[in-house]
C-alpha cells in the first residue's frame, strides 16, 4: 500500500493547473511532431527535448511524458494513414492498419489504436507502480560486477538482436563506445579523443548525438533517395461500433501482457512483442481470412503491445538506469541534463520526483485520449505537409535545439558530423540504436568495471563471482549462440529425415 500512497502524493503534486497545462501542451506538440511522416517517437522526443530545458524538473517531466505519449500516438497515425512507420515499433501496426484505411476503415483503425494504447498505457503504468519499489530494492542489492554484467548484456543483446547483420550491429556499438569516450576520463582526468579542442573536454552532449543520428541522419538518408512520397488517406472522426469493441478488447489485453516484460529487458524493445501479438491474434482470430485485408485485431494487439512495452522500458530506465529503447535512451539524457541520475537510488533520494513522474504517465495517457480522439482529422491533415517543408523544419529545429543546449556553434558542426555518420550507417544497413546505447552506457560500464576491479584488487574473477552474474553471462552466451544452435538443430533434423 506504500506504493499507492506514494502514487497519490505524486498525483497531488502533478494535478495542479499549470502542470496539467504542460501535459496538454506536451501531448499536442508531441502528436504534432510525431504525426509527421518519417518521425518516430525517439526522434520527436529528441527534437523536443530543448523545449523543456527552461522548466523546473517536475514540470519538464510532465511535459515530457505528454510528448512521449503524443509522439507514440502520432507515429501510429502515420503508420495507419500513410503506411510510413516512423519507427520499427509501428511497422506491424502499419501492416493491417493501412489496409484498414484503404478499405475505408481508417477511423476505426485510429480508434482501436488510441483506445488500445490508452488501456495498455494505463495497465503498463500500474504495473510500473507495483514493480518500481521491489525492482529498485532488488537493484540496490546489486554491486558493481552485477551492474557491469547487466550493461554487457544490454550491449551485446542490442548489437546482436537488432538489424539483419550482427557484424554491423557490433560495429555500430563500437562507434557508440568511441563517441562516449570523448572528453575527460572521469577517474584519472586524462583527456581522450579531444585532439586539443577545448570544446571536446566536456564530451559530446547526448542530445547532440541523438539529434545528429536520428534527425540529421534521417534527413540526409531521405534526401539521398529520390523515391516519391506516399499519399495519405483522408479520415473522419475515430469511433468504434459495439462489434469492433468486442473484437478489440481481447487483443488489447493480450498485447499489453506481451509488451510489458519485453519492454523491461534490454534486448526486448517493442519489435518482438508487437510482432508476437500480431501472430497471436492471427492464430486466435475467428476471422483469420481478414488478416492481410485489414483486420482490426491486427491493429489493436500490436498497438497495445507497443505502448505497454514503452511502460516496461520506463520501468527499467527508472529503477535500473538502463535504457532499453531509443526513446528511453533520450529520456535518460533528459534526466542527466537535470543532474538526476536514474537508477535504484533515485527512488530513495528523490521519491517525490519519481512518483510525480509516474503519476504524470497516467495523466499524459488520459490527456492523449481526450485530446486526440476528437482531433484525429486535424492530425491527418498534417500528413499533407510537403516533404521539403517537413525535412527543412526537422533540420532547422535540429540545429536550433543543438545550439540551445550550450550556445556553442561548434556543437552544430559536431552534430553534423554525427549526422553524416548516421547517414552512412543507414545507407549501408547498420542499425543506429546500438550506437546510442553505446554512447550512453559506455562510460557507465567503464565506471562499474573499474569499481568492481578496484574492490577485488585487480582480480578479474570478481566479474563472475555471484550467481546473478553467472546467470546473465550464460544467458548472454545462449543469446549469441542461438542462431547457430537453431541452424545446427535444423541441419540435424533434416539429416534425420533424409537418412
Amino acid at each position, binding site marked *: 500500500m506504500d506504493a499507492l500512497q506514494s502514487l497519490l502524493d505524486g498525483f497531488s503534486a502533478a494535478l495542479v493547473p499549470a502542470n496539467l497545462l504542460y501535459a496538454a501542451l506536451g501531448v499536442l506538440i508531441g502528436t504534432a511532431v510525431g504525426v509527421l511522416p518519417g518521425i518516430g517517437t525517439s526522434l520527436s522526443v529528441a527534437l523536443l527535448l530543448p*523545449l523543456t*530545458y*527552461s522548466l523546473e524538473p517536475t514540470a519538464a517531466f510532465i511535459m515530457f511524458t505528454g510528448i512521449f505519449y503524443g509522439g507514440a500516438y502520432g507515429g501510429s497515425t502515420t503508420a495507419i494513414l500513410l503506411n510510413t512507420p516512423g519507427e520499427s515499433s509501428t511497422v506491424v501496426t502499419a501492416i493491417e492498419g493501412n489496409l484498414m484505411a484503404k478499405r475505408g476503415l481508417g477511423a476505426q483503425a485510429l480508434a482501436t489504436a488510441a483506445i488500445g494504447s490508452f488501456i495498455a498505457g494505463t495497465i503498463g503504468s500500474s504495473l510500473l507502480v507495483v514493480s518500481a519499489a521491489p525492482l529498485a530494492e532488488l537493484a540496490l542489492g546489486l554491486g558493481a560486477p552485477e551492474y557491469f554484467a547487466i550493461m554487457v548484456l544490454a550491449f551485446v543483446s542490442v548489437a546482436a538482436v537488432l538489424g*539483419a*547483420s550482427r*557484424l*554491423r550491429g*557490433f*560495429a555500430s556499438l*563500437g*562507434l557508440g*563506445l*568511441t563517441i562516449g*569516450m570523448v572528453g575527460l576520463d572521469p*577517474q*584519472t*582526468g*586524462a583527456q*581522450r*579523443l579531444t*585532439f586539443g579542442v577545448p570544446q571536446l573536454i566536456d564530451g559530446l552532449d547526448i542530445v547532440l548525438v541523438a539529434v545528429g543520428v536520428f534527425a*540529421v541522419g534521417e*534527413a*540526409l538518408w531521405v*534526401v*539521398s533517395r*529520390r*523515391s516519391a512520397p506516399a499519399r495519405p488517406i483522408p479520415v473522419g472522426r475515430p469511433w468504434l461500433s459495439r462489434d469492433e469493441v468486442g473484437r478489440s478488447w481481447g487483443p488489447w489485453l493480450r498485447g499489453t501482457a506481451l509488451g510489458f516484460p519485453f519492454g523491461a529487458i534490454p534486448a526486448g524493445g517493442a519489435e518482438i512483442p508487437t510482432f508476437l501479438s500480431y501472430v497471436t491474434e492471427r492464430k486466435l482470430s475467428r476471422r483469420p481470412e481478414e488478416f492481410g485485408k485489414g483486420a482490426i485485431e491486427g491493429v489493436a494487439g500490436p498497438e497495445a503491445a507497443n505502448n505497454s512495452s514503452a511502460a516496461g522500458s520506463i520501468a527499467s530506465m527508472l529503477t535500473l538506469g538502463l535504457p532499453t529503447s531509443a526513446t528511453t535512451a533520450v529520456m535518460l539524457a533528459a534526466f542527466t541534463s537535470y543532474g538526476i541520475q536514474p537508477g535504484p537510488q533515485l527512488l530513495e533520494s528523490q521519491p517525490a520526483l519519481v512518483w510525480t513522474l509516474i503519476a504524470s504517465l497516467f495523466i499524459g495517457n488520459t490527456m492523449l485520449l481526450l485530446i486526440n480522439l476528437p482531433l484525429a482529422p486535424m492530425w491527418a491533415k498534417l500528413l499533407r505537409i510537403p516533404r*521539403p*517543408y517537413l*525535412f*527543412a*523544419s526537422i*533540420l*532547422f*529545429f535540429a*540545429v*536550433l535545439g543543438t*545550439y*540551445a543546449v550550450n550556445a556553442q*556553434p561548434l556543437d*552544430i*558542426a559536431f552534430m*553534423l558530423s554525427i549526422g553524416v*555518420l548516421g*547517414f*552512412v550507417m*543507414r*545507407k*549501408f*544497413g*547498420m542499425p543506429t540504436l546500438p550506437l546510442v546505447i553505446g554512447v550512453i552506457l*559506455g562510460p557507465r560500464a*567503464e565506471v562499474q*568495471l*573499474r569499481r568492481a*576491479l*578496484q574492490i577485488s584488487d*585487480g582480480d*578479474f574473477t570478481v566479474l563472475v563471482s555471484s550467481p546473478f552474474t553467472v546467470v546473465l553471462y550464460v544467458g548472454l552466451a545462449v543469446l549469441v549462440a542461438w542462431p547457430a544452435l537453431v541452424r545446427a538443430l535444423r541441419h540435424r533434423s533434416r539429416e534425420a529425415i533424409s537418412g
Partner: protein
Amino acid sequence: MSESRIRVERPSEFVVVALLVGIAAVLVWDTVGSPDAVAPQGPVTTAAVPLIAATVLGLCGVGIAVDLLRGGQGVPDEGRPGERTNWRGVLSVVAAVALCAAALEAVGWVVAGAVLFYLCLYAFGSRQPAKDLVVSVVLAIASFYLFYLGLGIPLPPGVLAGVL
C-alpha cells in the same frame, strides 16, 4: 574456401570498412600517444576501454570486409541497397548546416536560420522561391521570439541587434 568466388555487390560499402578501421587506428594513436594513458592507475587504466573499443571496431571492419568479398551487403531498413544516391541533395544539406554553424554568431540566428531553412527547402526539391523565402524568414523570426520570450533562451541577434 577455394570455392568462394570474389564478387562484390556494392564496392562503395568499403567506405564502412575504411571508417571502422580508420577510427580504430585513431583510437589506438590517441591512446598510445597520451602520456597519462600508459601510467598505471589501478587495474583498468585510461587506455583499457579505448583499446577494447578499437579492437571491436577493427574486428568488425575486417569481418565486414570479408563479408563484402563474399558477396554480402548491408541491407538498409528502407529502400533497396543498390539505389542511386542523390549526392547533390546530400551535399547541399550538409553545406547548409555547416554554413549555419559557421555564420551563426556573426550574422545572428534570424539570418542564419532563415538561410538554413531556405537552402534545405531547395535541397529537398522545393522550387517556389518567393513562398519559400517568406516562410523561411517568418519561421526564423518566430523561433527567435519563441526561444527568447517563451523559453527564456536568448539566441544571438547578430546583424539585427537592436532591431529585434
